[in-house]
């Protein structure tokens, strides 16, 4: 296959088509188009319906404090593949109001809520613009550049107090309890009434009520502490009998403002923090972040490093999918025996990660322009043993044990159906999207690293139910195995780093969006640099977070017992959802 065949149509220059309403972004290092807020809706609608940009992947904001501007950045894709069309809307900081794309793309639902929560950009026309990651008693919008946390020490790291006159002492002694919180003006935690919660319960109660028969619905809270939620996660469901008529997830219990931390950090310091997003697949997170920064720096890793990277990413994918089968059984009620079987496979992969990077889960292995260190002796043999012998055998075992199992089939077939249109519109990605019949895999749709040279198939299944999601993951694990076999066969010798390792990388001003097909879906990092050692904006497009937008569509009309199954099949990690 030649390269021309793979490349899908290039991004059109829409500034000609929508002359007067759209202008090219001419800032150095930037790309895309600037749209006036008043034209946004019509242009996005026309892009979607006429030019085929039907997949709104990422919505985020950037606070340009020196210019007094707030910018909303949209990344639109075609679900048949190809590069991004980046749209930007600029509004004044003090009066940041942008029309909401909720009614065009449901994927913007949570992302707009997040932008409102963290940046204070109001989206006009959004039906449910509540805070999502923080709570009502949170003072201000933390990602605004003039916002300061209670522990505030300095704008950027490294802090001056650490060297050469290092001050020691525990931070909590400096900031005693009660001094370390801020509340909004007029907020008293003692007399506070959770209004947003009340509103949520009221709206849940309204749905499904039959006035003639005087039937009522029951509102049930699943979580936040519940063994089926894979973490701290809550769903507010309204039930008509056993049937779910309304379901809204409530997240943010694990929120730590990853993005603000990221903006305080230097570029390199962010690398170990990305491990903590989706802590099951830290290598993929490293990969996406390294890609984004490398795009900005304009460097490429050497050949051997590319192979090592792909090897690690595919091992991660394999491990994650196996893990998800264990969880599937967990959610089906077979508590923990299958999970332990899955963990066995995971342990073997983690042994490799540990030997290579030094840590089982928090790998911190990728560097800008390569990887941290070469494969130690013996690791490649271990990987070979795994990919040529154990992996195919274990996958067949799992296939045998699960695929034809009556419990799996009865519970999963027809449960939590998501149609292709819904999946695209909700911005679902990864196995969730492909199980709904959309053959969209970033490794093929917008190839990065060496994936364009590897042989593998994009797995797609068409029913969009939990069973197909399981099958998609199973087949994808097989494809990961296939890729790994090619990688360990072809891995060349050579350097593993472009240039000298440096703890302070120079990143030219500009923006970049690096995305990979992570095990959970599209993982993207949007980074804006202003030439300083710290990123000006650091945004994570977390697949788990956006995949949850589809949860209501999957659960509505089903039984309450299936909610647990649906949530498990979305495959979320709360470290990534709440960031």
């Amino acid at each position, binding site marked *: 296959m030649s390269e021309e065949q793979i490349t899908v149509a290039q991004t059109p220059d829409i500034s000609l088509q929508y002359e007067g309403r759209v202008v090219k972004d001419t800032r150095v290092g930037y790309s895309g188009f600037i749209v006036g807020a008043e034209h946004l809706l019509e242009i996005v609608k026309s892009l979607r319906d006429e030019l085929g940009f039907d997949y709104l992947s990422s919505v985020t904001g950037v606070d340009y404090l020196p210019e007094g501007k707030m910018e909303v950045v949209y990344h639109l894709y075609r679900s048949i593949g190809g590069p991004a069309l980046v749209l930007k809307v600029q509004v004044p900081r003090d009066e940041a109001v942008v029309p909401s794309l909720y009614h065009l793309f449901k994927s913007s639902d949570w992302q707009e809520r997040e932008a409102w929560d963290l940046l204070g950009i109001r989206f006009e026309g959004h039906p449910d613009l509540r805070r999502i990651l923080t709570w009502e008693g949170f003072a201000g919008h933390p990602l605004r550049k003039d916002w300061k946390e209670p522990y505030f020490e300095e704008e950027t*790291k*490294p*802090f001056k*107090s*650490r*060297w*050469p*006159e*290092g*001050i*020691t*002492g*525990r931070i909590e002694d400096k900031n005693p309890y009660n001094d370390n919180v801020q509340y909004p003006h007029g907020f008293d935690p003692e007399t506070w009434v959770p209004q947003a919660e009340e509103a949520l319960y009221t709206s849940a109660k309204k749905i499904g009520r039959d006035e003639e028969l005087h039937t009522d619905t029951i509102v049930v809270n699943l979580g936040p502490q519940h063994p089926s939620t894979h973490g701290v996660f809550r769903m507010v469901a309204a039930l008509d009998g056993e049937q779910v008529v309304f379901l809204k997830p409530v997240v943010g219990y694990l929120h730590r403002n990853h993005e603000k931390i990221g903006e305080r*950090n*230097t570029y*390199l*310091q*962010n*690398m*170990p*923090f990305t491990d903590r997003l989706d802590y099951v697949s830290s290598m993929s997170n490293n990969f996406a972040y390294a890609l984004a920064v490398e795009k900005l720096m304009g460097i490429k890793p050497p050949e051997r490093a590319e192979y090592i990277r792909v090897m690690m990413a595919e091992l991660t994918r394999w491990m994650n999918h196996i893990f998800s089968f264990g969880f599937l059984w967990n959610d089906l009620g077979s508590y923990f*025996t299958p999970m332990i*079987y899955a963990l*066995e496979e995971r*342990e*073997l992969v983690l*042994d490799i990660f*540990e*030997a*290579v*990077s*030094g*840590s089982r889960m*928090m790998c*911190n292995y990728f560097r800008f322009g390569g990887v*941290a*260190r070469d494969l*130690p*002796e013996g690791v490649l043999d*271990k990987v070979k*043993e*795994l990919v040529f*012998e*154990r992996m195919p055998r274990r996958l067949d*075992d799992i296939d*045998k*044990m*699960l*695929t*034809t*199992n*009556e*419990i*799996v*089939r009865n519970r999963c077939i027809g449960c939590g159906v998501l149609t292709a249109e819904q999946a695209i519109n909700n911005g679902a990605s990864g196995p969730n999207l492909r199980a709904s019949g959309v053959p969209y895999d970033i490794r093929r749709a917008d190839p990065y690293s060496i994936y364009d040279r590897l042989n593998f198939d994009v797995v797609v299944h068409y029913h969009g139910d939990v069973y197909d999601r399981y099958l998609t993951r199973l087949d994808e694990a097989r494809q990961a195995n296939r890729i790994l076999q090619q990688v360990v066969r072809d891995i060349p010798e050579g350097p593993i780093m472009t240039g000298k*390792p440096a*703890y*302070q990388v120079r990143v030219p001003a500009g923006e970049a969006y690096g995305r990979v097909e992570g095990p959970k879906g599209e993982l993207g990092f949007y980074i804006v640099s202003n030439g300083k050692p710290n990123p000006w904006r650091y945004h994570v497009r977390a697949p788990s977070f956006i995949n949850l937008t589809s949860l209501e569509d999957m659960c509505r009309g089903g039984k309450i017992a299936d909610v647990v199954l649906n949530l498990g099949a979305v495959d979320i990690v709360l470290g990534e959802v709440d960031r």
Partner: protein
Amino acid sequence: MTGKGFLRMLFGVFKRFVMTYVEDFRKGKKRYYTKEGIESRRKADVQGIFTIQYPEEKLPVPEEFRFLPFLVYDEGPNGEKDLRCTSCGICAKVCPPQCISIVRTNDPVTGKPIPQPKEFYIDVDICMNCGLCAEYCPFDAIKMDHDYEIASYSRQNNIYDIERLAKPVSYYASIRPTNNAAEELARQEKEALKAAAKKPAAAESAG
């Protein structure tokens, strides 16, 4: 037949259960509490039980394993501790959670900095074991440890000072033999280069 798939699954589980005893029988006492027993249970072709009986058994950690930094010192002939650290501050600058703080020594007469840390603290509550300090230290002075059993009853003493952080180079060589050998080699080469560069210069000035 309905139920066949279910039975197949149960058979899979049962097989595993039986294999544990078969392996126990085959390998005998060697399977538990011995080094080769532990190794055999983490191989890719393992059969039956997979778990390790911690704390009686411990998984050996690979050389690259990292857990909390320590400072390396060279032992002098009379047992004096010669810290490799020059208090250049790179580790404190690169540390992502900023848990390292260093006080630099200044010459009491001239007031100029001396390459020797006066105080060196690591707040191990904050340390995230990323290993960046060890990776970017130009003097091989700070390295990551292998000792992961450091649970304690109190958080009060969790800011480690020089006394607690300093460990001899022999310890470092014992936990990371390959790394240490490679670093020693690089250092010797560097010194040889330096000496070679010095010699002609000395000869020239003499001549």
